[in-house]
């Protein structure tokens, strides 16, 4: 196995094992921590693919902001941290075969054809930042802006729901 192969195996193992722990472990803070570890593993995979911009953004946003926000929310929730949370519901045994079937379908379709792998040998020299920016702001401008607009709407919605109206309250 090449060095890249070993690195891929290690990173993939970290990602998958910690992702499994996220949904099985009973302690919710540790669950969030394993989620962060899983995100870091994915960032490592991005680096293997020479997509270091994506890797840095992955760590910055998913590990540094979203998971921290989850931890923040968990810590503000009373009585949740010491409690052992059940990760399964009564639908577990129905959901399991469905999930496995989904996995089998995905593997089947991905194995059906070989995807062209572009080794991109000069990616490290040029960097992926500029092509990514060109793609986001030229052909994919509309979906990009739409996605940010939807996120904005979600943010505003969250504030509206969370903020209880006080009669006669002035802002």
């Amino acid at each position: 196995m090449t060095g890249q192969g070993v690195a891929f195996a290690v990173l993939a193992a970290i990602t998958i094992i910690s992702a499994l722990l996220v949904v099985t472990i009973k302690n919710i803070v540790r669950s969030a921590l394993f989620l962060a570890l899983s995100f870091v593993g994915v960032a490592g995979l991005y680096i293997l693919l020479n997509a270091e911009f994506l890797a840095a953004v992955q760590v910055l946003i998913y590990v540094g902001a979203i998971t921290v926000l989850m931890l923040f929310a968990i810590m503000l929730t009373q009585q949740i941290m010491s409690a052992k949370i059940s990760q399964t519901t009564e639908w577990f045994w129905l959901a399991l075969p469905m999930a496995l079937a989904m996995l089998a379908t995905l593997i089947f379709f991905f194995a059906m054809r070989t995807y062209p792998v572009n080794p991109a040998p000069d990616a490290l020299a040029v960097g992926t930042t500029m092509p990514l920016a060109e793609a986001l702001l030229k052909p994919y401008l509309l979906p990009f802006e739409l996605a940010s607009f939807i996120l904005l709407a979600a943010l505003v919605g969250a504030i509206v729901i969370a903020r209880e109206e006080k009669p006669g309250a002035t802002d």
Partner: protein
Amino acid sequence: MPFDVTELVIAIVKALVVFVALLSIVPVLIWMERKVIADIQIRIGPNRAGPFGLLQPLADAIKLIFKENIITQGADKVVYFFAPAVSMVPAIITFAVVPFGDTAHILGRKVLLQVADVNIGILYILALSSLGVYGIVLAGWSSNNKYSLLGGVRSSAQMISYELPLGLALVGPVLLSGSLSLREMINAQGRAGVWFIVPQFLAFAVYLISGFAETNRAPFDLPEAEQELTAGYHTEYSSFRFALFYMAEYVNMVTVGAVATTIFLGGWRGPFGNIVILQPVWFLVKLFAILYFFIWVRGTLPRLRYDKLMKLGWKVLLPLALLNLMVTATVKALAPQSAIPIMSVLSLVLVAIGVIALTIISARSTRTPASGLREPSAEGAFYTWES
């Protein structure tokens, strides 16, 4: 690329040199901080251990290591032991992309005076600095102590809030230099003949203020506010684990200072800058100037109240950083060639706007108690945005 053992050795040596240098700066900085704070408060400061008390940090470190390692009852042991390391590691490895000199020629080889020239250097720094909060949050949570937990909660809210202006402030210099690589940004400052502090002064100010908050230093040291939280997240830590937290704070300070030096103060550039041996010296001089400013601020300003801290971050720093970004982007789009000279003039206007905004905000917030400001209630104190 053929595998070259010498390159590997050079890389390891560089990493070791930076690591050791970084850890040696910490005791110097601790001594400097105690001396400067003592000066500000008209005291003498450490003066017993060694000449000028220089050996005081060493004595403190030895004392700390021989202390008992205490674990609180009901602590989450794994996370509790893990947390100091989590706060230390990102602080140290951030330094890998900071250039402390140009290319040196050693034994006929070109050696970059930088551990790794990553072409997304700034993003790397932002990504790692966003991980620093984990150490504090986890320490606070795993200690099984309500004060520690409050420190952790405060810290996570504070660091998420101040990361936005911190990151946005760095986008202005990125636009002017057209690169995310720190080495390239220093070169751009050399070509322009002016440090980015001139065309991006507002960004520099926003970056430094956010930097104080990111390193949890006064006036933003709410996560460890002694009077309220009995030292917050590291209340329960003793011995070497406490020393790790203590060191991480200083390493973080050095990192924020080094990034400011690199991006806004021209990094290793200075008079006779083509003499390679002088470049790390210039870098250190600028770095220590910024660190002195850090200490000066700590010795001068009182701690902010929590709601004011949030207000400053979201209502002042974030809009100012966005304004700076907007103006810089417009200038860059309209006049890509002469963006830096134009911005050097506009930066004065931007600073004026910033000062006016701060004045108005502080005038309004000093007026509010008379018009009946609700004091934040005990349980509402941590998420009181409205006033």
